[in-house]
């Protein structure tokens, strides 16, 4: 077989510059979209629709049902962390993701369009207390 000859095989400086710029974009977007801090609440959404908010400090089992009432997955809140223990999706990536507990962290299950997201600690987002 006669394959075409590959001429350009080494990384040149122009390309290196593009890599550096991409890294910069990553860095800036990391600062812009970063969310941190210990979470207190967890938010569960299916296809962007909020189906519930749960307190991370209360150990509980949260079944996630779709709008027809079919069980999609089961998540468990324990010791201030949430994890998915079972899911009907084919890849089971959501189970592999393990426990999350920090604000901004998410467990995403693409087949079920489920997003489990830790939202900021309540005390942190409160601007004032009415006595």
């Amino acid at each position, binding site marked *: 077989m006669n394959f075409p000859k590959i001429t350009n095989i080494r990384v040149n400086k122009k390309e290196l510059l593009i890599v550096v710029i991409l890294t910069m974009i*990553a860095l800036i977007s990391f600062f812009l979209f970063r969310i941190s801090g210990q979470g207190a609440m967890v938010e569960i959404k299916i296809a962007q629709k909020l189906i519930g908010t749960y307190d991370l400090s209360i150990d509980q089992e949260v079944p996630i049902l779709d709008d027809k009432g079919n069980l999609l997955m089961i998540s468990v809140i324990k010791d201030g962390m949430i994890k998915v223990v079972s899911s009907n999706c*084919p890849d089971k990536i959501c189970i592999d993701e393990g426990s999350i507990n920090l604000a*901004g962290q998410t467990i995403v299950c693409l087949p079920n369009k489920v997003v489990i997201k830790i939202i900021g600690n309540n005390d942190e987002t409160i601007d004032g207390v009415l006595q």
Partner: protein
Amino acid sequence: MIKSKYVVVIGALLALSMIFGYIEMLLPSFLPNPAFKIGFSQIPILLTFYLINLKSSATVSIGKVLLMSLLFGYFLNYLFFVNIIGAIFSIFFIWLSKQLKFSVPMTSLMSSLGHNLGQFIVIGYTLGWSIALFYLPLIIVFSIIFGLIIGFISKILLIKIEKRF
């Protein structure tokens, strides 16, 4: 080279791509989010691009998503659309690299970046942009790292193949 020979080579590379994809599914993930993959299945796609042409590599890339979805039961599912958009973007970015005369590792990086950006857009559109934007820096960083790794592997393979044939 006769047309049927091309068909055989493309078929073999497509099969290789699927096997790589399957092996990766079985491997335990060491990344913060298991959805991030090194993307070994990109190697046959890049090889197809350099050894045959862009059209064939598009066949391998999209054919892989199609056949994998049929095999693992997510055909025409949400996950299927995420992957197919990723594949299309990846091919577009390979085309772009060709126009810019990029080297092999850089083309690999672009392909990986395209794949992830395509998925990023679908995820942002369906699951909300805040989630997608949270993953954006990770997407770029992993695209660079794994794109370059895959690129260097492909480069070595291409040199070996050239010497052999």
